[in-house]
């Protein structure tokens, strides 16, 4: 883990109140794994903002952070531009289990839950299927980025873009059509529950990336918690340290 001030190399407005920052942070980049996150320090705020890694580029020593402007802190961050510096703590947490390239994986992302899945699309490419869900056309982000790497299906609740409906029918069709070794999902809780249920029904391993309000980010304060159950034993685990990625079958919603 590192904590320092790092330069921003690119800012991009993705629309829908979502923006992308690329940050030159070679130490963090070298240690980072898909599914991990950083905590961003925002001047004037007592708590850091946990943001997942949407891109890890070891060659450039850069990470990419995709952030929704949905509060005073993330709004302050939205004013940062190329050349500004940003206070990062990371890489944090336990990321996705990574089977060897060639494994057939499915990504299921909902809204602002899509960014942490992008490094998986880049890793698995031809053996990866992405299913991305959004409320409507105006909320769609990163679909082009995913489509650069892998087969990508976009679903919208209102049918204004891609397939009308939630991600569930598309995931079920995929699970029926081909052998999937593992499903990775990140998004709102109802979507995660649906993914978990479908994967259990089809006996496919699934890992979910959870979101929780957190403070320290390093496992010290146990402010973020998720109840898990494995082999009949219930345990409270730390989202920031033991997660944010957990086996879907273990999570007690």
């Amino acid at each position, binding site marked *: 883990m590192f904590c320092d001030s790092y330069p921003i190399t690119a800012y991009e407005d993705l629309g829908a109140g979502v923006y992308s920052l690329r940050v030159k942070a070679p130490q963090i980049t070298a240690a980072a794994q898909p599914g991990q996150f950083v905590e961003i320090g925002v001047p004037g705020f007592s708590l850091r903002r946990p943001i997942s890694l949407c891109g890890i580029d070891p060659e450039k020593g850069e990470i990419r952070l995709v952030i929704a402007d949905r509060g005073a802190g993330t709004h302050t961050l939205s004013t940062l531009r190329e050349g500004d510096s940003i206070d990062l703590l990371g890489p944090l947490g336990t990321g996705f289990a990574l089977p060897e390239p060639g494994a057939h994986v499915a990504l299921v992302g909902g809204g602002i839950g899509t960014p942490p899945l992008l490094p998986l699309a880049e890793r698995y490419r031809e053996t990866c299927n992405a299913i991305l869900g959004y409320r409507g056309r105006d909320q769609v982000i990163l679909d082009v980025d995913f489509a650069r790497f892998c087969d990508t299906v976009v679903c919208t609740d209102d049918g204004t873009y891609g397939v009308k409906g939630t991600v569930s029918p598309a995931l079920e069709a995929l699970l029926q059509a081909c052998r999937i070794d593992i499903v990775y999902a990140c998004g709102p809780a109802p979507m995660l529950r649906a993914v978990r249920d479908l994967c259990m029904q089809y006996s496919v391993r699934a890992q979910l990336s959870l979101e929780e309000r957190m403070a*320290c980010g390093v496992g010290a304060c146990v*402010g973020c*918690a998720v109840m898990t159950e494995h082999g009949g034993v219930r345990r409270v685990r730390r989202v920031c340290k033991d997660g944010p990625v957990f086996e879907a079958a273990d999570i007690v919603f």
Partner: protein
Amino acid sequence: MADLSVTIAGVPFKNPVIAASGCFGFGLEYEDFFPLEALGGVSLKGTTLEARAGNRPPRIAETPAGMLNSVGLQNPGIDAFLREELPKIAGRDVVRIANIAGRSPAEYRELAERLRGAAVDLIEVNISCPNVREGGAAFGATCEGAVSVVREVKKAAGQPVVVKLTPAAADIAEIARAVESEGADAVSLINTLLGMRIDLESRRPVLRNNFGGLSGPALLPVALRMVWQVSHAVKIPVIGMGGVSSGRDAVEMFLAGASAVQVGAALFRDPFAPVKIIGEMNAWCDTHGVEYVRDLRGAASLWEDDPDWRLL
């Protein structure tokens, strides 16, 4: 270089900065940022007799100049603490403080008994947790409650006892005097102050526990006032905490009467906070010609009343 060493209840600290209980896990979570040895002491996560799951999340909410938490004493229990957590830091050159919490005076006594001979230098008795239904701040809010716990702990404790006080007491100095007379070796204050935040859209509290303890810079002036009052009411040392985020804050705590400080929420904004505070205290002492940081303890003096000024 000033001499930052202090002694609390006979236990020597190389410097007066202690990581606060509940903010520093069992001591190893911040090892990527600084070695444990950089600190004067570490107060470990509050431990109960049995393993506890704590409160349902969300447990964290941001506030102006601070934060709320409603963790609710999640911990693996005293057995796991002694068997798995404490051995990992037992050989380290840092003052180890075990923090204990129970539902009854008898439970506190049993916890103190279990710690006899363990690799801890001090026992911090948490009678001030605002996030649990039984025990916690209920004991710390009254002299009778506080005394009932400290009496039992002192019967069993093999280490000096620090009693952690709550700002929820009507008169915290009175509680401090009561625990001192029961044999408490030091007091630490303040624990968090009960607060609340409400989500405008859902019209529900942000915390699933509805209420939670306020910590962070917002607490500093309240803590300073209480450290002042307590340190002028008792002879035992006072460990000051509540929003300490800089060397200047720590010096202010000393001037108010503290013999050491604990640092908690500041870690979450800056994982280097405790070592920065130590460095800043050192620098402040040097520029102000202070050779021994302990000489700052209680060095502030109040203004006298000036009744003549009010004459109209």
